[in-house]
């Protein structure tokens, strides 16, 4: 199915709030002053929510989906464990979604970000930038190559270390599907100690963010593969009148 068909479909299923972190999560200190106190006001989806940005696939550069190479335009390769992260993007109706833009960012193998406000003393990698992007193909598949990011300490009032993770920004077919999340790695003992991972109360929901080692896609003498499937909100398949509550 082509994406423009999906785009023309109806409102989204209401978000299941039990899957997501609450706004106020005291163990994650930054949420204290940044969490709205009032409850969100539910509104029926209108055209403004069921439509969303469209991207020209030509925006992608040659190395955008290869973080091991893109910082040095292919002339040098980032330092660390080479990995492939891949998966499919689905909606809650189990339909794959083509043409989804995925942006990723991450620390280098030492756990250091190429960002002026990262104060961790681990070294920068002269060959690694830490950003990339790709677009899902006609079957909803995406893939990028990168360096496995290191764990890093962060200021949260205690001896807190983030598990290895990759940040994901995902565009679906509507503005209401917009999602930013983080992907973790199977077997990382820091996940269960992490105040940010633990903002997600439902263990089954957190587990969906943990990429699994995938030996089928692992390339011998080259790169291990991790599989991470992305599920976005589902949409009613027919358009119905956008009635506001109470009307």
């Amino acid at each position, binding site marked *: 199915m082509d994406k423009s068909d999906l785009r023309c479909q109806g409102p989204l299923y209401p978000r299941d709030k039990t899957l997501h972190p609450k706004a106020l999560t005291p163990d994650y200190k930054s949420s204290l002053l940044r969490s709205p106190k009032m409850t969100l006001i539910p509104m029926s989806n209108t*055209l403004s929510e069921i439509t*969303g940005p469209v991207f020209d696939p030509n925006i992608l550069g040659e190395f955008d989906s290869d973080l091991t190479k893109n910082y040095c335009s292919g002339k040098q390769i980032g330092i660390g464990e080479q990995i492939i992260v891949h998966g499919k993007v689905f909606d809650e109706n189990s339909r794959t979604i083509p043409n989804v833009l995925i942006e990723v960012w991450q620390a280098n193998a030492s756990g250091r970000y190429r960002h002026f*406000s990262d104060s961790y003393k681990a070294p920068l990698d002269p060959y690694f930038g830490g950003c990339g992007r790709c677009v899902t193909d006609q079957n909803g598949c995406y893939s990028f190559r990168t360096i496995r990011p290191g764990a890093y300490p962060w200021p949260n009032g205690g001896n807190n270390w983030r598990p290895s993770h990759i940040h994901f920004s995902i565009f679906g077919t509507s503005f209401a599907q917009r999602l930013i999340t983080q992907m973790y790695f199977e077997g990382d003992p820091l996940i269960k100690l992490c105040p940010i991972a633990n903002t997600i109360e439902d263990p089954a929901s957190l587990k969906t*963010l943990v990429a699994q080692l995938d030996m089928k896609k692992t390339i011998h003498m080259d790169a291990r593969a991790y599989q991470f499937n992305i599920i976005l909100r589902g949409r009613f398949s027919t358009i119905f009148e956008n009635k506001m509550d109470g009307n």
Partner: protein
Amino acid sequence: MHKLQRLKEIPSQTAGPFLHIGCIPSQIGLNTLGGIDLGSVLLSKKTKGKRITLTGKVFDGKNIPIRDGMVEIWQADANGLYRTSETKLDGSDLNFSGWGRSHCDFESGSWTFKTIKPGPVMMKNGKWMAPHISFWFVARGINLGLNTRMYFSDEHSLNEKDPLLQELKGTKRIRTLMARKIAENSYEFNIYLQGKNETIFFEI
């Protein structure tokens, strides 16, 4: 046709303090993805409609502007039509993407968009929505991106008939959705995460 299994949305996690690396890399001097940030330019010379500048800040619970966040907007074109396809003609202005992205300035916390004033949008039921812009805000400390809507305080008669604003009539907080006109073609829309001016955020 086989019955499809119902899946569950994956959960959100905070964008963290380093979101610039992936979303707006040129703001921190990273030119890895071509050097032009997505969503940084909404307009071309050919875009139809009245040019406007939108600015604002997002304030935390201590009334301090957030300087490590990111704002995204989504809006209709001058005729009230949303861009829905890159290739098919949907009648919307092909010279207007409708989507923008701005970081909060590292010193002042201000975000800015140069865009056009959207037209009123006709709903499926024939009612009209007043000109408005959808906002989405993410930052360190925000576990799930926040959605709100900005309306124009100088569109009084259209605002009166807007279905969402009508529904919210009677709540004093409705004023938190109104952009203030600060100069000709220039509007300010401040967002407050907490406190007596807390902005209305929607579950969309």
